[in-house]
């Protein structure tokens, strides 16, 4: 095995290091990498699978002491999001930290370890009629740690907010081996800084999330979905705005559109049967003469579906002000027409979506994503290229500009991870 070689770090005996790590996690839990472990084509030096959060913290401490880089991974569904990693890293798998530590159903909170999959977590909660009111992509594989690190979400966020609104406590393993807790087991709590929010969406750059505590919601009795075909982007946008500007409380409000089909608007209500019926009536009224359409079976999983077979495609996450969605769709059409790209999009009314671009060759991907980013950034939005062919990734800034807070974010990173152990360079602004 190659010796970890980092300028400025102390020279360490690599075999001694592996032995040290084996001693922490056990010989069976440190293995040599295989092809599937590559991140953007780069092979890790080793894959380490701690069984407890204490082991995870000790691994981090040893790695930091040896000047080794560490990239945390759950199931790896989103491991290629972000900048290409720097060489000489090990992968720390969280999959063995998968316990549901506590479901305090009477208090509607649950403590869960990072490696638990979303589906597994939801199944346990459902035994008491509760759920984490979040529907991220690929729940059967995605882990709690992974969705937190990437701040993933789905249509439910329109009603319940995103992870920042659901997480109430966290345990982080820091590069120096500290295990630090913040927040707690009660929903209402303002004691100390809100590190659960800071860690959410931090892409594994501050600490490894080992445990999280969430507030829960009841599983609704009834759920109704209806879809409308709209002739153009402006009409779709107006329907979304009309519903948002009404007392209705949908738990799903999204637009689906593509280069080959006009926009469809999907609306979902949950709660009591009478409440759903009344709101559906109001929605139909708001939609006026728009034609009802049959929603696809997986209508509320389009944010996962849009990725199917996307190896050679570009998939971006974009954010926008709800009133600018129509404008964005029109601009998207112009840009992709000019470059002869096809596209597919799903966007939540609250102002976040995914767009996928496909072209005969990847030659125009970099230019297209930059043009689209220019449009959203011109309207208070952001665009992150989550996926693209590797040769494209080399030529683009996947994150876009960090604005005037880059220095502040770098100072936070330096405080938490002074030696740059955790996923260095993968985050916005090269953090």
């Amino acid at each position, binding site marked *: 095995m190659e010796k970890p070689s980092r300028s400025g770090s102390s020279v360490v005996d690599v075999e001694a290091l592996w032995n040290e790590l084996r001693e922490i996690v056990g010989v069976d839990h440190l293995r040599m990498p295989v092809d599937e472990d590559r991140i953007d084509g780069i092979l890790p030096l080793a894959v380490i699978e701690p069984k407890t*959060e204490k082991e995870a913290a000790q691994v981090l*401490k040893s790695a930091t002491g040896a000047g080794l880089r560490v990239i945390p991974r759950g199931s790896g569904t989103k491991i290629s999001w972000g900048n290409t990693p720097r060489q000489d890293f090990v992968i720390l798998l969280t999959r063995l930290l998968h316990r549901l530590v506590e479901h*305090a159903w*009477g*208090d509607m909170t649950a403590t869960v370890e990072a490696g638990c999959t979303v589906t597994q977590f939801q199944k346990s909660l459902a035994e008491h*009629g509760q759920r984490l009111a979040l529907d991220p992509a690929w729940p059967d594989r995605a882990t709690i740690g992974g969705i937190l690190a990437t701040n993933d979400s789905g249509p439910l966020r329109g009603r319940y*907010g*995103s992870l*920042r*609104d659901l997480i109430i406590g966290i*345990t982080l393993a820091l590069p*120096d*081996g*500290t*295990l*630090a*807790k*913040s927040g707690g*087991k*009660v929903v*209402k*709590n*303002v*004691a*100390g*800084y809100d*590190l659960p929010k*800071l860690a959410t*969406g931090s892409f594994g750059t*501050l600490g490894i999330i080992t445990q999280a505590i969430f507030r829960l919601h*009841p599983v609704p*009795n009834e759920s109704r979905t209806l879809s409308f075909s709209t002739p153009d982007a402006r009409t779709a946008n107006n329907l979304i*705005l009309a519903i*948002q*500007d*009404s*007392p209705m*409380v949908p738990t799903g409000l999204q637009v689906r559109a593509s280069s080959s089909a006009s926009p469809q608007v999907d609306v979902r209500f949950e709660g*009591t049967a*009478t*409440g759903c019926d009344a709101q559906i009536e109001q929605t139909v009224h708001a939609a006026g003469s728009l034609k009802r359409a049959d929603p696809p079976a997986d209508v509320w999983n389009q944010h996962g579906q849009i990725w199917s077979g996307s190896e050679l495609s570009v998939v971006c996450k974009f*954010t*926008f*002000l709800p009133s600018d969605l129509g404008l964005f769709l029109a601009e998207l059409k112009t840009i992709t027409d000019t470059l002869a790209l096809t596209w597919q999009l799903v966007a939540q009314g*609250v*102002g*976040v979506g995914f767009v996928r671009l496909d072209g005969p060759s990847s030659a125009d991907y970099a230019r297209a994503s930059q043009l689209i980013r220019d449009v959203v950034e011109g309207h*208070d939005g952001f665009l*992150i290229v989550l996926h693209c062919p590797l040769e494209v990734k080399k030529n683009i800034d996947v994150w876009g500009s*960090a604005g*005037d*807070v880059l220095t*502040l*974010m770098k*100072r*936070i990173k*330096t*405080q*938490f991870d002074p030696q740059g152990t955790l996923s260095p360079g993968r985050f*916005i602004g090269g953090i």
Partner: protein
Amino acid sequence: MNANILNEFHAIVQDGLITEPSQLHTYECDGLTNFRVMPKAVLLPTSTEQVQAIVRICSREKIPFVARGSGTGLSGGALPAENGIVISLARMNRILEVDYANARAVVEPGVINAEVTARVATHGYFYAPDPSSQSVCSIGGNVAENSGGAHCLKYGFTTTHVLALDVVLPDGSLVHLGSQSVDRPGYDLPGIFVGSEGTLGIATKITLRIVKKPEVIQTLLAAFNTTNEAGSAVSEIIAAGMLPAAIEMMDNLAIQAAEASVHAGYPSCGGLLLVELDGPAVEVAHLMKQVGELCTKCRAWEIRVARSEVERTLVWKGRKAAFAAMGRISPNYIVQDGVIPRTALPQVLTEIEQMSSAVGLRVANVFHAGDGNLHPLVLYDNRIPGQEENAFELSVNILRLCVKCGGSITGEHGVGEEKKMMMSEMFAEPDLETMQLVRCAFDPAQLSNPGKVFPRTRLCAERTGPYQPHPLEKAGVAQFF
């Protein structure tokens, strides 16, 4: 304070500089009046640029500064620092922009909480966080403390409703945290700033989320013989899968005080429950019936639904006046703010009762029962020697009880000066050290509201090396996680 510096301050804010001792007294404390420090000067800037100019001087001269809104805080968050200045944001009180299509309002920090709702109500919107002091407290203060209120059970806290902030950092530089759209890439800086109690800088412009008013709002009052019966009704309501807009509880002493002060027409009972449902009319009607049945099942002997907006407002007025109303039944009182897992309520109430009778002091209880946020009010008479000390000790012991039950030392009032020593009872040393890493990133010189929140200040110059076990941990006395 050096005359040259005062001249510099004067050049920035003109008549917005207070140095007269008689006027400075107003600023020596906030709602927590038993801690007082006289500031060297108070400055009332009118723009972000002025705040920046003031903070730059503070940074250059190493003068500690404390930002202040309306001064209604209950944990001493706006208590001045020794040899420091107070920066009052009271003159930055404009609502700059309301964008109904996107449900956003952009405000200055000195805007009063209730003014936001007043401004957007005609369009059918409201600003959800509603601390009891909402008619006087400022948005800037709400941001600092991450204020809650009765309706945060359903709608969330201040942090849920802040999308973006212009912040003057403690070195005087201006940064833009968050964005008008959701999910800005990068660290969640609004998430860490909101609730940081003024220790990370000063917000000078805040983008708030406003919420469409529900189709109907209904409020039910239910009278029980005991708080335990009322508490079991709360559990039943939650277990039935409902998420009310608010569930509030008051015990007999609290009811007496509120009645004496506001005449809300509360029934005289051992435990009063106030349940508010909002949403689609048919749904609320259906669920309200169910709430009534669950209350009856838990032995409520009187159930009333407010019949008009006037009645509903009166019901809430009684609840929101509960703290101040204590003056009607006791010469002095301590307002406490603790949180427990809701299911621990019966046990905690029983223990509070035992603790209070053991020391011979009365405790009135007002709760945000839906989310387990307790506000025990410890009543005492400071003319009786020793009572004040006993009252403080009792109130601290109630917090210890909250922590023991898996709760928190503060749900919405903040740590501030009052509870910083209690932080060590809730968090281990490594937890607190880790939180302070954030402080060091924002304010390495520790000038912005210094000495608050944490029991000890971390020296930011000190570099974190590999982890060193705490002496207690080495000795096996404490675990670090």
